[in-house]
């Protein structure tokens, strides 16, 4: 596996460490969705601090991941988008509107804690 995935309680944390090819991104998406089932995870964090480029394919794959994980009961948050990557994304027109993002791992965990708490109170939504 190109991207290490750690289980931390109810959450999965995937930390991107190198540039990922399209296939690596697809594998990551599928591995995370699979593990959501295996570990009954309620949240997924993808840390993209080390990702050199977030292009349209990467954005699409992360969006698909978030939707697929949601269908299996888990929330997803992307963390660690670097300032220069964020700039290029905005120029390219990629806003990641539908996907939750947070500054870093700490913020991502806080976000998941809130969302999972809310989910427990109102599971239908």
């Amino acid at each position, binding site marked *: 596996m190109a991207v290490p995935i750690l289980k931390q309680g109810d959450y999965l944390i995937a930390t991107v460490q190198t*540039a*990922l*090819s*399209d*296939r690596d991104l697809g594998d990551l998406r599928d591995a995370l969705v699979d593990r959501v089932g295996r570990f009954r995870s309620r949240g997924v964090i993808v840390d993209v601090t080390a990702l*050199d*480029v*977030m*292009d*349209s*394919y990467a*954005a*699409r794959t992360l969006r698909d991941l978030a939707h697929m994980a949601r269908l299996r009961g888990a929330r997803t948050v992307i963390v660690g988008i*670097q*300032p*220069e*990557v964020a*700039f*290029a*994304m905005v*120029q*390219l*027109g*990629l806003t990641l509107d539908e996907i939750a993002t947070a500054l870093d791992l700490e913020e991502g965990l806080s976000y998941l804690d809130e969302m999972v708490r809310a989910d427990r109170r109102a599971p239908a939504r």
Partner: protein
Amino acid sequence: MNHVKAARERVRPPSIRVRVDSDRAIVEARQRGRALAERAGFGLTDLAIIATAISELARNALQYAKWGDIVVRCVEDGDRMGVLVMATDAGPGIPNITQALQDGYSSSGSLGLGLPGVKRLMDEFEISSELGHGTTVIAKKWRL
């Protein structure tokens, strides 16, 4: 001032060329292109821009033409230094370039942000395409 020009020629980074025929090659093209631009003195933001543009162009070639070539090289215009990214493929060509340059348009059902996005990212953008022969995109980024 021939000796100054000669010295600059020696120091200037060579061009890079990558045959994009797999998704791994997209990564190679953008990493090597980024490295060339870094040696040419571009800052972090511009490096991310150039790498992103290379990635989008390389993927277009792979997706529509099965393979293509990416060339990245340094260019000069008077006092300005910059990089040129050229993506060529021998694919089906683009029937309606105006349409392809509209945001949201895609013939493959994807987000369709490729060409208009690259045009926004880079400082100069030229595209030529011939049905049945292929497509060439040339985009430039200048150092401020």
